[in-house]
Each structure stands twice: as structure tokens, then as C-alpha cells.
């Protein structure tokens, strides 16, 4: 795979294998840092890399099912909806993502 060329208006971010299973990577976009997650069941999700609570870097959290626990104060953010789970209230922006031929594509706001 060569280069990270946009395909239509999807960002060509990385190889799926660049993201650890139950882990995340991050990249800079025009609107801020975006975290891209790979779950245990090989799904990929992209959300803003800022916890709605105190802006913790969500890409550094522990990933479980389709959620991530923020490393700063243990808020759990749902990767599918961007909503905080449980008693906490807050939401982060989510971005459409897909895997094409082993590459991870994310559609940003542009």
C-alpha cells in the first residue's frame, strides 16, 4: 500500500495491522486529534481523541467490547455512539470508518 491518499473524501489512515487488537492509534485532522480504535472483534471506530469529561486522551485507554475507558478518570465512552456509558453524561464526536483491502479509512468533516 503506497501513501495515504484520500479515496473520495475518505482519509486513507493506515493498515489495519498498524492498530493493535483492543488498542488504538491517533492522527491529527483539521479539527483536532482523532483516535482510531480496533476492537477484539476486528471492528474499527474513529472518535475525537478528547474525553468529554476533562479532555483525557481516549486513544490511551483500555478497550473492551465496543467501549474505551479513559485513562484519566475512568469514564467509559461507547465507540459506536460516542456517548458516555453509565451514570456519566457527555458525548464525543464520531466519524464514519471502514476497512477496504486491509486499509483503514476514516471520513472526516472536510
Amino acid at each position, binding site marked *: 500500500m503506497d*501513501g*495515504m*491518499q*484520500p479515496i473520495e473524501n475518505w*482519509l*486513507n*489512515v*493506515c493498515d489495519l495491522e*498498524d*492498530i*493493535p*487488537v*483492543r*488498542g488504538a*492509534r*491517533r*492522527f*491529527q485532522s483539521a479539527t483536532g486529534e482523532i483516535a*482510531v480504535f480496533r476492537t*477484539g*472483534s476486528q471492528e474499527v471506530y474513529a472518535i475525537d481523541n478528547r474525553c468529554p469529561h*476533562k*479532555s*483525557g*486522551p481516549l486513544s*490511551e*485507554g*483500555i*478497550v*473492551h*467490547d465496543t467501549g474505551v*475507558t479513559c*485513562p*484519566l478518570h*475512568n469514564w*467509559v465512552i461507547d465507540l459506536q455512539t460516542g456517548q458516555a456509558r453509565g451514570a456519566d453524561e457527555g458525548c464525543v464526536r464520531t466519524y464514519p470508518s471502514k476497512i477496504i483491502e486491509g486499509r483503514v479509512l*476514516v471520513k472526516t468533516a*472536510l
Partner: protein
Amino acid sequence: MSATKQKLVVIGNGMAPGRVLETIFEEAPDKYDVTIFNAEPRVNYNRIMLSPVLSGEQSYDEIIIHGDAWYADNGVTLHKGHKVVEIDRDAKTVTSEPGVTAAYDKLLIATGSNPFIIPIPGHGLPGVLAYRDLDDVNKMLDVAKSGGRAVVIGGGLLGLEAAAGLLAQGMDVTVLHLMPTLMERQLDPAAGYLLEKELTGRGIEIRTEANTKEILGDDKVEGVLLDDGTEIACDMVIMAVGIRPNLALAGEAGLEVGRGVKVDGAMRTSDPDVFSVGECVEFEGNCYGLVAPLYEQARICGKVLCGDEEECFVHSESSTKLKVTGVDLFSAGDFADGDDREEIVFRDASRGVYKRLILEGDKLIGAVLYGDTADGAWFFSKIKDGEPIDAEARDTLIFGPNFSGGAALDPLEAVAALPDEAEICGCNGISKGKILSAIDAEGLTDLDGVRACTKASSSCGTCTGLVESLLAFKLGDAFEKNAVKSMCGCTDLGHSEVRRLIVAKKLKSIPAVMQELGWKTSCGCAKCRPALNYYLLATWPGEYNDDNQSRFINERVHANIQKDGTYSVVPRAWGGMTNSDELRALADVIDKFKIPTVKYTGGQRIDMLGVKKEDLPGVWSDLNKAGMVSGHAYGKSLRTVKTCVGSEWCRFGTQDSTGLGIKLEKMMWGSWTPHKVKLAVSGCPRNCAEATCKDIGVVCVDSGYEIHIGGAAGMEVRGTDILCKVETEAEALEYCAAVLQLYRDQGHYLERIYKWEVRVGLEKIQEQIVEDDDNRLALYERFLFAQKFSQNDPWAERASGGVDAHEFKSLVPAE
């Protein structure tokens, strides 16, 4: 003491006489002065649960039925380690080996049984053991420590439990069984085959139709020789071929004996003032070895001794369960083939389920269940009742009590469907109705309450699930199933249970734990995953592959995340020492990476704050070049060892506290622990290193070293407790490492040493470290072994860009 009390003397202190006394103290607490002679040097414990003790799933303390306090509270005189050698029925006295004589009005003989040792050549060699009491278990555990092979002669209930226990203790195990299939007295050949397959799959070698000819060895066991010439080398032989009622004493006293001590339905021997219960008894030609009939004998004997002769002991069927974790097996009644008998069989080969019911006419007379034993109690009650089963009921009989056309079984519906007479606890003969009325009458809300009031689930424990279902059925939401706090929402199990099962079931990966222990979520959560990762790492050093994705970010990138997403970096300063080269290198790093904040920590180290994540490998690389390594300031691991300058400089110093601190830190660095661990060594009782508020502290004195544990100076402030005092520096190192290893073995994840100490008790820790030299040495060696796999500087591995490079780089999509 009232002068009108009669004297009751009891010979034997097992489960049956214990139950007789419980009955007496309930019915007529003031009737007797009781004296017990126990050949074993201990209190009454639950012999059925020796197998979990052997496999390491329970401790001796957990299986005690009557502690010392019980004897004191009931005014019982207990002579521990007193074997009775003579009964004088004319004088009405008994005399023990150490020479104590006691007079009786009523005498209870409960001498139990002796294991049968096959008198083949070599049966007397050291290393040939029976499996009857705690002494046997301790001897087995002793041999198991050094590994090797155990040969178990006898593939019955006891032999197989011994085999599974020894396997769990890490031995290779061979079972020799004379008959073609295992447990032929309790199982039919099909279930015996399934059991053999299961045990073979676990690694137990099973040889059926194997006749032992000789035990080989000169001054200890070295092997066994079979009839067919096969030789099997081994380090231990367990004889589990059966028991013989212990009737010698009764026979010598002139009481009527046959296979056992003969009794009538009131448990009276041929002498009306002498009673007998338990495995030593023969009733109408039957001898008994299972707990249910023995408890029934005990209950009746207790009532008779209180003057209530209404009930008589009658022979009845017994049911059996095998206590090997993960093997579900139940049998009851008579299941031999016969012309007048019919059978209903259900097999599900892929699930390993086999059920067979045996009917004679329209009555159920036997049941064998393998793989799914949930309906055992229901079948057993049908066998005991002998009620006719009509053709319609027969069609669905094998599917159990709540056959309803295919819906999944709800355990609550299952217990709701049971009749009130249905037996829930086979060991104690407790019915559903009894438990429900006790819940009502006593206002019980939990399992312990039911155990205390009815005895249900207090013996072998296999009916615990049923009793819990009954509580839930009766109380609804008011019943909280687990008194033990569960690890997290993903499981009902507590930390201790999970740790125990990881060892007992040899679970070696997070998915294996979640599968085998029935995790409710697909891949856990941020609470349980780091805990499981630690437990597996601590339990299987060198075998378990650390799961980075189950670690908190700090342990994943070996630095402390700060509120703004930057990191702090703390290099190790061995014993709090540094020098000009290190300081110069630190200054260069601070300048080169423009690190905004530098401070001294409370643990005598230097902390650099505000390092960007992508700079971490560069910072580490420069620190490594100056000889500095990770201080693990970010981990649930050994943090700092604080010291004072001690005898090297201080005019009050008694020992080289700095030197000892450095040695401790060099020995312990890199080890993972349930929570962070901080040490300090003070050179004299003035305690300038503040050792008495650390997890482990050493205070040097003129005559040696005081080892302290369990201090805290955080959310809680707690002074340490003194574990012990030792004389040499080498001992100080060994004792501290043993404490750390015991904590690594027993601590719950995120439980500091002081909380662990409060939970298990200082005395227990002292027993295992100070009083037991062998155990301490074993802990020390296990710690050093585990350290072989953990003392690699994580910074060096990452500074070169080798390990986890992806952690430190952002992705850059082109646009």
C-alpha cells in the same frame, strides 16, 4: 456443674460423633458432662473436604467444623492426641495411651475405619500412604513439592479425588485400577468410560485391569511392579482400595462385632450403656462410608441419648458425587442390569452428557448422571420415595423436573417445581420444606444463615447452588447471592476465588479464564483485565505472555500520564543514591527535550514532568547511556527503596542501611505486584528513612534488623507491624523477599500490603514466613525465579525503537 449431670465419654472426634453432640446440645444441653478422646491431635474437621485441601482449592481452616471455642462453649473436655487403649466395662472407665482414665455413664464408640493396605511386598516402605486424614494430605503435599510421579492404587471415589488433587499439585499421576472401568460401585461402564476419558484428557494416566504385584524400593518407594511385568517408576504410592471398620477396641472389650461393631436401630451395641456410630458400625449386615447415612445414625443416637427413642435408623439408598473440580458426576440407587429392569438413556456426546435411569416395574431404582447433574436431587427423591411412575411421566422423566417442551431451564423454576419433601442436601438429609420453613422462621437472608440453622450445604457443598436458588425463590430480590464482593460486573466471582481457580484449573491466558470461569462479557473491562493480567503473570512466571492491551496506559508506555496527556519520567536512584555523572546526564536531558518541570519526589528520586509521548524513547535512550533505568514510578510494582546514610556516615547508625536498601532494590526491581510497593531502610530506631509507614520497612538495631510490614501514609495513615527480628543482612533480604512473594501470591489486585495484612491477619503471615522455615525458603526461591523473567529494563527495550514503536508515533494520513 450440676451434680445430676451424667458422664458421656466419646472415643473418636470425627464428623459422626460431632453430629451426635450437636444433637445432644440442642435437645438437652444440661444432660451430660462430655469428655472426648481423639487419636488425632486436632479438632473436628470436615473429612469429605480433604480433596479440595489436597488440590489447594481450600485450606484446613476452611474445613474445620468445630473450632476450639465450640468445645469450650459447650464445656467439653477434649483430649487431643489421646488414643484409647482400653475399655473396662465392669468399672465403666476408658483409658488412653498417655494414661488418662475417665469414668462414664454412657459410652460412645466412634473409632471410624482404617484404610485397607494391600499386604503386597513393599507395602511398608516410606512413601506408601493411605488417604484418610489431614496427616496423610500433609504427607502427600510434602512429597508433591518436589514433583515426580505418584501412583494411586484404586480407581474409586477416594483414589480419583487423590489423583486429581496430586495432579493439581504438579505431580505426574498414574491410577491403577483392578476392575475394567473406574468407580464401578457407583458408575455403570458407560459413565466410567466418560470419566476415564475426561481424566486422561487432563493428564492422569489410567490403567484398568491392573493388578499390583509388588512395591519396589530399598529404603523408600521407587516404583511399582504389575502382574504383567510392567514397572512404573514413582516417588509415592497412595493406597485407596477401601476401608475396614475399626473394631479392635470394641472387640477387646467383649462387645459383639462382625464386620463392624454391631448395633440396633437405636445405635446401641450389645451393652446397653455403650453406643456406636460412624464407619466402625455394622447395622443389619451393612457398613457405611458415605456421610448421609452416618449423619442420620448420629442424629438418632443423639436423640436416644437424650431419652427420645421414637425414631429408628433404617437402611436406605445413598447418592454419590465426585468432588473433582470440573467433573460433574452423580449416582444413586441400584443400576445393575437385570431381566426385570428397564433403562432410559440419554446421550449428548459432543457436550459429554450421559444420563441413565433404571426402572424396575413402574419404580425408579437407580440413576447415573454424567456431565449434567442438575436433576440429581430430583431423581434421588423419586428413588427414595418409590412412588409409581405412569407411562406419561415416564416419557419425559429423563429430562428432569421441569420438562416444558424445550424452553431453557430456569434454576428458579427448577427448585419451584420440587416437592417439599425433595432432598436438597444429601449429606445432612435436609429437604426443601425444611429449608423454606427455616428461612421463614429464622428470617434467614443468606447462605451462611441457612448453613448455620439447617446444616444444608455445610458438608460437601455440592448443593450450594440449589440452596441459593431456594433463597432466591423464597426471598426474590431481597436475596443477594454473593456475600463475596465480585471482581467487577463481568463476573460474580471474587478476587480470591479467581486466583484460586487460575491455579486449580491451570488457566494460562485471559481468554481461558473468561471461558472457564463463565465471564459475562466478551472481553472484560478496564477493572478485570489488568487484574487478570497480573494474576496470570504472578502465577505462571516465564509461561504467561503479558497482554499489553490489558495494562493501564502508564504500564503500557512505562511513564506516568499527566492531566494534559504528557508524561512524567522517574529514573531509578538505587537506595536514593546518585552521583555527578548521573546528575549531568539528567541536566542534559532536561535541556535537550525542554522538560518544563523537575522535582525531587518523596521517595528520594528525581521526577521530570511534562515530557511529550513521542519524546519518551529519546529521553530513555539518553538516560540509559548514563546508566540509568526505569524507576517503575508508574507501575503496580516495586517503586522506591528509601534509605538513610546509616553506619557509613551517621554517628548513630547501627548497620549499613544504604547498602541494604540498594541490595533490596537490586533484588526486587522490575517485579509486578498487586499494587505499588514502597520500601525503606533506617539505620537506627530514630528512623530517618521513615521505614515504619512503608509497605515493607527495615529498622536496623545493634543486634540485627527489625522487619516491618503493612505501613501506609496515603489515604490512610498506619504504622507498620513488626513481622520479626533477624540477625543478619542475608536473612533480612530473604524475609523481605518472602513477604513480597506471599503478597504477590495472595493479594487482591489494587490491594496494598497493609490491606492484605488486615484481611489475612498478621499471625497468618508470621506462620507462613517466620515460623515455617521451609515455606519461607520456598517463597524466597519462587520470588527469585519469577525475577528472572522481569528484570529487563523496559526503557532500554523501547529506547531503541524495538518494542511497541507504534505507541509513540502518531499516524500521518496524507490529504
